[in-house]
């Protein structure tokens, strides 16, 4: 295949790695954008999700937010936010990606608290824990596996979606692919394939890495059987 040879050639050119706007630059941008988006998502979604789960209300709200977010095209949000007072640059991109990180984080935080054994909750109440203590000392620790699953789902989604930031020149590895399409298939075909390979490998690598971290951080008694691990609460 011609395009595949071109892609290998393109990846073997050291200038494509180290130039300004080369692979290393783009990788750094990609990781920074994703990290900031997931961080904002966590700061917003976890407190809300834990609180809704604690009070037992808002199940409908969680489902509604997930459904509506699913229907909004990423491309649209990435296009609209820079035209608001936010302005251009990385800020609107980070915010747009954070919006897509919220549903899995929120849903898993909510489910995580809801699934806590009612008897454990009653026992904690009986020991005289206040609502706040109940949340931080009993429900939060027991929800950790769900929080971890949500974090992983959100992170992988954001890293994958960050590639679309290239539509609005927001940086990231997707920029390599977009630039390739801009050159046309005969010239840029190799670059397109190379960019696809890089973005795909990054997403799969992050998924694998986070799976290992999740396993290492979850206390042994809370580790759920393998068949439940891949099922986020949003689906």
């Amino acid at each position, binding site marked *: *295949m011609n*395009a595949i040879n071109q892609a290998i050639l393109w990846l073997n050119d050291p200038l494509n790695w180290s130039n300004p706007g080369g692979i290393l630059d783009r990788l750094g941008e990609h990781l920074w954008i994703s990290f900031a988006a997931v961080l904002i998502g966590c700061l917003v979604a976890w407190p809300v999700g834990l609180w809704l789960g604690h009070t037992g209300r808002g199940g409908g709200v969680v489902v509604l937010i997930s*459904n*509506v977010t*699913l*229907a*909004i*095209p*990423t*491309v*649209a949000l990435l*296009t*609209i936010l820079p*035209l608001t007072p936010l302005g251009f640059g990385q800020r609107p991109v980070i915010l747009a990606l954070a919006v897509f990180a919220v549903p899995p984080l929120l849903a898993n935080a909510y489910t995580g608290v809801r699934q806590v054994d009612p008897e454990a909750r009653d026992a904690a109440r009986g020991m005289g824990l206040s609502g706040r203590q109940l949340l931080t000392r009993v429900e939060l620790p027991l929800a950790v596996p769900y929080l971890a699953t949500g974090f992983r789902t959100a992170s*992988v989604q954001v*890293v*994958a*979606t*960050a*590639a*679309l930031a*290239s*539509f*609005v020149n927001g940086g990231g590895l*997707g920029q390599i*692919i*977009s630039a*390739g*399409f801009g050159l046309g*298939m005969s010239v840029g*075909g190799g670059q*397109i*394939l190379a*960019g*696809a*390979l890089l*973005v*795909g490998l990054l*997403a*799969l690598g992050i*998924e694998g890495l986070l799976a290992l971290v999740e396993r290492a951080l979850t206390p042994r008694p809370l580790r759920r059987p393998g068949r439940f691990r*891949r099922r986020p609460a949003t*689906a």
Partner: protein
Amino acid sequence: MQYADAPGNPWFSWQYLRDNADTVLSALVEHVTLTTQAVAFAAVVGLPLAVLAYWFRPLTGPILALSGVLYTIPSLALLAFVAPLVGTTRPASVLIALVLYALLLIVRNTLAGLNQLPAEVLDAAQGMGYGRFARLFRVDLPLAIPAILTGLRLATVSTVALVTVGSLIGYGGLGDLILGGFRNNFYKAEILVGTVLCVALGLLLDLLLAGAGRLLTPWTRGARG
């Protein structure tokens, strides 16, 4: 044409809709076509895959793992993989990428539905002398309809949103409007029309499928009210 800094670049304008009704309509038609084709293909491939995984347990892991890996690959990357191999002059590139994404949701939900059938029902079907295929079509699949439908609805809504990515190679339906407006000196009315139609289309198709589900499963209606 209006410019970004001109006072008249509103988020919504009837003028734009009147002048560009044809463009908007053809983008909408392209969007609906790509979505329905992708979901239909994914259902045609995904349902048998799920049934295979249901019948032969050892296949469950590999099938779920493969579709999971596919889902992890970013949509832009998948499009970029497919486009040089299939060619960018055809909507087929977009379609293939869309089908691969819808596949996972359909397989996963169908399999979950089939695996959750009550054992007594299956025993009863066995006792009535149903063979493998008779049981599949008369008992297993009808009872799994709610789960299958959940998968179809998720797949449809996310496909509607994903179609827009195809506008990178010029087959993005309403996404072409969104990006076209962005490139066209940030013509806000065009962007918003594309976005609103996209979200409305997703919700409308979701409602249609939910309605079809109610018609197909009359036995659940009494229980759920």
